[in-house]
């Protein structure tokens, strides 16, 4: 009981501290690739610090839903983060939920964000909500099917169990099913974290906004909570991808040495994943909104092929 509590606190602190770093890393790498200097890896921390120090302006049209949303988003994302194996194959809150709960908790956060977008009464909020819910709805089946491929392989939806099976010697990383599901999951990751070619996190260009349009009216600490939540979600999905498909180096015990080894591996793998995200972002142009379904349909097809391939191999 106390052990669970301690591990949860450790992982929570890790989530809270590492999440902005990943965002900063991606931004800096992208700038370098485009021969710019970039704001520096630590910029997201400075942004958050600034936001939490500032006052804020609430839109007069908004109700309590607008006020509640930052907390709901933050808490739901953080709980989901505690359900995935990060620095140990045993997730702290693994008993409270597996991969289905993670997907649905992220859904809860999104549900409230979309409501808050509508709550402001401005056109942009509604526009962002509508697009966000559309993309999420189309990404969900692809994500689930990719997740199912892994879950069926491990015979479990518990992420700890998946990681445990995946770190054992009988697991085939290079099985076609795994690779296809990985590819599908990568596409979903791009869509869910609002990256190019689906959404551009760097722009406030009115007509192309999705996520930014929804949270346009937020400021100060509330914006800080939402931004923090979004970066935790990004870290969470990246970690999920890493530790469900490529869990090597993940230690199964919560011991100081084990945690440090796992952490080193995690950071290394996050770096590799961040580089690939940056490559995708730099080499692609943002898609028209109505081309995004094609991308997600591709992800769904890849995942379905992955499942079919279990018959062949």
């Amino acid at each position: 009981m106390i052990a669970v509590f301690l591990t949860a606190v450790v992982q929570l602190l890790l989530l809270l501290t590492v999440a902005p770093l990943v965002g900063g890393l991606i931004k800096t790498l992208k700038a370098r690739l485009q021969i710019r200097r970039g704001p520096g890896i630590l910029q997201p921390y400075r942004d958050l610090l600034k936001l939490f120090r500032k006052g804020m302006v609430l839109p007069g049209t908004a109700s309590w839903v607008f006020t509640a949303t930052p907390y709901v988003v933050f808490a739901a994302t953080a709980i989901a983060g505690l359900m995935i194996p990060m620095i140990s194959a045993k997730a702290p809150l693994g008993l409270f939920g597996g991969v289905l709960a993670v997907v649905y908790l992220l859904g809860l956060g999104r549900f409230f964000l979309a409501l808050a977008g509508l709550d402001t009464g401005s056109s942009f909020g509604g526009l962002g909500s509508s697009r966000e819910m559309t993309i999420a709805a189309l990404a969900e089946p692809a994500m689930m099917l990719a997740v199912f491929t892994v879950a069926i392989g491990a015979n479990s939806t518990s992420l700890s169990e998946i990681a445990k099976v995946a770190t054992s010697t009988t697991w085939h990383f290079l099985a076609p099913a795994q690779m296809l599901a990985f590819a599908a999951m990568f596409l979903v990751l791009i869509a869910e974290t609002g990256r190019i070619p689906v959404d551009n996190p760097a722009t406030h260009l009115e007509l192309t906004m999705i996520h930014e349009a929804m949270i346009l009216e937020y400021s100060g600490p509330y914006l800080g909570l939402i931004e923090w939540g979004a970066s935790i979600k990004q870290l969470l999905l990246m970690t999920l991808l890493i530790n469900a498909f490529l869990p090597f180096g993940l230690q199964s015990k919560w011991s100081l040495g084990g945690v440090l080894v796992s952490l080193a591996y995690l950071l290394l793998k996050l770096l590799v994943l961040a580089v690939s995200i940056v490559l995708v972002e730099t080499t692609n142009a943002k898609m028209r909104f109505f081309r995004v379904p094609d991308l997600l349909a591709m992800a769904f097809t890849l995942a379905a092929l992955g499942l079919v391939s279990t018959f062949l191999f």
Partner: protein
Amino acid sequence: MGSPDPFLAAGLASFFLGAVSGLATWKRPATARIVAFAFAVLGSLLLAVASCLALARPSSATWSLPLVTLFQCTVRLDPLSAWFTLTLAILALAVSVYSFGYLRPLERTRNLGALGFFYNALLLGLALVFTAANAFFFLSAWEVMAVSAFCLVAFEHEKAETRSAAVVYLIMSHAGTVMMLAAFLLLAAFAGSTDFASFHLLASKLPPGEQGAVFLLFFAGFGVKAGIVPLHIWLPDAHPVAPSNVSALMSGIVIKCGIYGMARVFFDFFGPPPLWTGTVVLAVGVVTALVGVLYALQEHDLKRLLAYHSIENIGIIVMGFGAALMFRTLGHLNLAAMAIIGALYHTVNHAIFKGLLFLAAGSVVQSVRTRNMEEMGGLIRRMPGTALFFLVGAIAISGLPPLNGFVSEWLTYQALLAGFGTTHSLTRMMFPIAGALLALTAALAAACFVKAFGIPFLALPRSEAAANARETAPEMQYAMALLAAACFVLGLGATWILPVFDPITQQALGVQVSQSLVAHGFALQAGTAQSGTVSPAGIALVFLALVGTAAFLVNRRLRRARVATGPAWDCGLPGLTSDNEYTATAFSKPLRLIFSAFYRPNREIRPEYDVSPYYPSAIRFESGIEPTFEKHIYGPLKDWVFGLSRRMRAIQAGSIHAYLAYIFVTLIVLLLFGVRE
């Protein structure tokens, strides 16, 4: 033949008295409102007690009602019946309490005595459908239910829309009854009895052809009532036009008669059925869920939207049944039990949150006097209670944790996932694909309920009526609070409720699995601890802790910071008005375009000009989707039926000699058949 169950008997009697009191107060609406619905409340409470006792002490004793008829009026409260009766009791209790407040403004204009009569008759019919233990008595109760529901749907019969919806409902309902009757007759001929007890596992002993026929007749017959695609078209018309308290009953429990019938047939009358039956049921479930939610997304009539979501949820329940049928045939009884539990849990969950949503929608419609979402807006300020309860229902129906919808969808997912390992044929691909499409359905439902809550309740009022809306009567709030609380209890307390299913799965499959579905007392698990766990209560606890901490820290900071209220960004126009807001039509537009192959949307833009052809003085915009099922299936069917009846007019000469000749010929033919036997 056991002795009568006192609580069940008293509950039935209470509904009967309620109906009688409705007749007695035909001319006194104020009295009718109190007396008839007080009997309904009493009856619901008694039924709740009876069904709880029956679930605690399972028995399958039958006893006869003291009615003089051609057949035995036997009643039985076995675990499956008790589960549905309990669902009925909870929902009917809330709806009857709601009715006290909801009907008060109608006292002057409406015949509430008639409403009370049909309302109690509907509850009586429902209770008897769930408990009847004899095929003919079941069908009679079914007709009482169907006809009183028809009268309630047609309650506001001065509107043409209502009349046509009610007639379509009545026709389709009876088409369904015919199929059920045929199936029951086939079974009864084989059993030599019409008692349900004699049907137990009997259908599987029929020859394969008849077995398939009986199965499909039952599935289609009950499917009409449940609203499976493509037999659903009556549902989105009939549910919204009824008074809102009746809509809640219709969507919450009346369509569950179809689900009850399926459960009774699939898992009581049938033994392990042929594998194709399960695959058909699973596929129909998936299609029903998707079609329901896709139509709901394009619907801007608040109550019609909810009605389409009933179709979606029926699809989810039927998916569970399909998976259970397949598992049973493949010999995985524990998995079959998990799938049944998922389906039955979703049945009660849907009754609760859909009832809640319809009651909240009724409260909104009563206050704003329109069902069109585009004319609402900003109601969260004027109707805070209704808004909160609608939000709880919206979260629950979207399957988001930690409320009840999440629990039953989780169980269904787990059953589908485990299904992949039950067979090595290509059939196993059905399970993960069905799971992925369930995920699509759930995500689309969430999108739809962002719209259904966001557009009517948030931002600025879009009409005069919405700006002047008032919160509705306290009785209505109590009723909604009761159902909202039930959403929490069924979600957070799921692990304590699961043992209730043991007698049901024991009766249906001979296994008890609640032990294997609970881990450490507060978490659900899928068969074993290794195969996945979830704890809604645990999630809620951690969620509260995190929100509390974050709120504490942020508020401490905000005390020293400046928090101002300002206008939202209005794109530089002078002031934000409701014209700037995103509409429901606009919200669902991306999905309308993405799924245009399904919707076949049409739109018309007609500018009107005064002087210059460059500056239109007004622009008319119309947008719609093609009603595929009505146009391509039911339209031709209707034309065919009408054509046939026109041709049959030739033999209706109106001459008494011709009719005597018909009777004579019929008699001869029948005699010939009789002699041949």
